[in-house]
Structures are given as C-alpha cells and as structure tokens.
C-alpha cells in the first residue's frame, strides 16, 4: 500500500510554506502562533493529496486526524483564552456552536483587515497635507469655566482597582510545551516506561492537549517510543529501546 506520510505533506499557506512536520515543529517550539495558521487550508491540502491517490491510507488518515484535532484545539484555546472556562460549562453542542460563531467573527475581521490593506495600497497615490498649512493663522483654544469636582472624580476613577479582577485567564494560558518535555524526559530517566493517561489524568484538557503535543515531539526526536494496544486504549510511553510492535503505533509527528 502506498504510504502518504503526513509529515511529508507539503503546505502552501499564507503564514507558512513547507512540509507539515516543520510546521508542527515551529508550533511546538512556539516560533509560530497557531492563530497565524489557516487550519482549513491544511485540511484541504491533505484531502487533495488523498484525492490524488489510488487507495485510502487509513493509517495516515488516522494520524492526520489526531494531529489536526490537537492543533485545532490549540488554536481555539489561543483565540479565546479567557472564555475557555465558560465554554467548558456549556454542553458540547452549544460549545461547538459558540466556538464556531467566534471563529467566524474572527475570520470576518481578518477579511476586514485584508480589505483595509488593499484599500491602503490603492490609495498610495493620494497625497494630502498632514498638519497645518505653512502660512495658516494659529488657532486659539478657549475653554469654558470648569467644575473642579470633575478633577476629583477623574482621580477617584483612576484610584479604583479594576472590577472583579479575575486571574482565571492567566491560569488558562497554555503551559509551555517545554514544561512537559522536561517532565517526560525526567520521568523516562527514572522509569523505563509510564502510562500517559495516568500521568496527565489530573490536568485540564488544555494541559492534556499540550502534553500530548510534547509527547509527539519526544517521539519524533527519538527520545521516546509510544505504544497503544488499541485506539483509545491507554498510551504507554517508554524509552526508545523499549519499543514494542503493538497493534497501533503512532508514527512520526
């Protein structure tokens, strides 16, 4: 069966041009913000690539789905960090709708920004004077009598702490991938293998997603081997020399 290695998928996006695995590396190293990447374009490229093949490469499809889902979650969280908690309160359907609504809003505003950029380019040959004319009279400004109470009110406003300052969005910021890289490296230094699900069990979904990306990074760098008895079964992480050929092996990220 001809393989369609996901990592070789060559992308040509606005923000990035090159193979998929380089894109992943840049995202993981936080050298590229997920919001800069057009995920839909990636999906379209992948589907086009599949369309060009004789057979469906199920393994590649599975790998791709896992990766794109993780990236989408990363991107969604990045777009709405402070609302992630609210979204979790909603039932999945409502949350999906809300997320879709906000993504559409962001997308429309990106379009608006593009329109402004084009407009600006079209107006490049329109020149006008900024500031006063060389020989214009100098304007004089006069102010009606003012109430000193407004000064006191302005200062009172500035002395107010912000309303119910919530640090929630700080907590919801993405933990850096590096944190999990270090943690997993340390674990593997102490133990020959560990169970990923047990290790991240107590974490939030966002942290789990980042932890998973860290795992893929370790696998790619050859620092860890991953094994899973069946789809959705616990993922076992081991030192690279411990790799066993089990039913489903996550290949390179």
């Amino acid at each position, binding site marked *: 069966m001809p393989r369609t290695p996901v990592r070789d998928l060559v992308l040509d996006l606005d923000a990035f041009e090159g193979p998929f695995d380089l894109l992943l590396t840049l995202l993981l190293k936080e050298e590229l913000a997920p919001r800069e990447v057009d995920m839909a374009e990636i999906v379209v490229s992948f589907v086009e690539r599949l*369309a060009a093949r004789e057979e469906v490469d199920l393994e590649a499809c599975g790998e791709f789905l896992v990766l794109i889902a993780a990236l989408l979650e990363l991107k969604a969280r990045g777009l709405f960090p402070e609302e992630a908690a609210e979204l979790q309160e909603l039932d999945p359907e409502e949350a999906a709708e809300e997320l879709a609504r906000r993504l559409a809003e962001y997308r429309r505003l990106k379009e608006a920004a593009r*329109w402004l950029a084009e407009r600006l380019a079209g107006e490049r040959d329109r020149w006008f004077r900024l500031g006063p004319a060389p020989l214009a009279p100098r304007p004089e400004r006069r102010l009606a009598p003012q109430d000193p109470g407004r000064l006191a009110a302005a200062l009172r406003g500035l002395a107010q702490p912000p309303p119910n300052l919530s640090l929630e969005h700080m907590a919801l910021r993405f933990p850096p991938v590096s944190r999990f890289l270090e943690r997993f490296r340390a674990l593997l230094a102490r133990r020959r293998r560990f169970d990923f699900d047990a290790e991240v069990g107590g974490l939030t979904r966002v942290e789990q997603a980042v932890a998973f990306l860290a795992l893929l990074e370790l696998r790619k760098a050859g620092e860890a081997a991953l094994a899973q008895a069946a789809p959705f079964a616990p993922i076992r992480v081991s030192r690279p020399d411990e790799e066993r050929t089990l039913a489903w092996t996550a290949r390179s990220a």
Partner: protein
Amino acid sequence: MDRPLRLIAANPLDRLARTLEALLVVASQPLSVPELARAADDGEERVETALGLLRERYAEGRSGIVLERVAGGWAFRASREAAEACGRLFERPVERGLSQAALETLAIVAYLGPCSRPEIARIRGVAADSAVASLLERGLIAEAGREEAPGGAIRYRTTPLFERVFGLESLAELPRLDDLAEDAEGLRERLLEAAAARAS
C-alpha cells in the same frame, strides 16, 4: 482650470467659491458643509452649489490640486498624476510599516468601535497593546472615554485621519462584514472539487 469663473464674476457665488478655496487651502483637516457655511457666513445650500463649481475646477486631470469629499467633509489633495513627485519630497508617516496586527486591530476598532484593549485582545486572541500604541501614535485611533464600570478600560475609536488616509467619506463606506466572508463558500467548493476528483 478651463472653466473660467470670471464669466460669473458678477455673481457673488464666484466670491463665495473664492472664499471656500481660501478656507480649504489653509484647513488642516476636511471641512464639512456646515463648517464652511459658518466660516464663510453664507447658506449651506449656496456652499454646496459653490463646492460643485470648485469640484469641476479642481478635478483629477485638470489641476494639480484636487478637491475631494472625504472623512465627512471636503479637502484639497494632490492629483494622482503628481503622486511620484510627491513621493520624492514627502513621507507617509501615518501608514508606513503598518503591521498585520495593527491592521487587524484597526479593523476591529473601525467595525466594532468604540472598544477597549481587552475586547480587542479577546477577538484577536493575543494582547493588543503594541498594536494599539502604534495606531494611537499614528493618529489613526483615539481615546473615546472609558468602559462604564469604575476603573473601566479605556475605549478607542477611529479618527477622521483614518477615514482620510483610507479615502473613505465615512465609516459607512466600509464594506459589510457579511460581504467579505465569502471564504467559507470558496473552501467548501474546493473540498467538493477534491472529492469529485477522487470519485472519478
């Protein structure tokens, strides 16, 4: 230029037109019809008529000075024909090096304004501080009060300079957001095409 106003010199409209020329050549920003009428001490309708005359006279191709309707008023600018010469002598400090982040922030303020930094950050998904600072410094946005709550964040709106730089008569000239979002449809088509190619 080729429509000598002298023919109507007996008509005081000619004098009004000259007054408007004078006002427009010294003004530092576009002047609205009421502003022109008040300064010229004349009626708004007559001002409109005189502006019509001047618009023909100061038209692209006829004169190096062009009268345009922009940012809710009227203003002189250089003709497009002279753009190259202007580029050799002047700079464009307002729009030079406007970043993608600044453009997105500008779009948000233009469409949703007045809005605050936290609101902009929520929509863009990243802090908007440096983009807001750069737009403020360029004079494309300005403060527009604070959010209602005590200690509320400062809100921003776009300025007349924004409309002038982008050549807009008013914010109403911005295209509707719905008209811009054709992308989803295009995307769907490409997916369908890919599927059809696969099936064949």
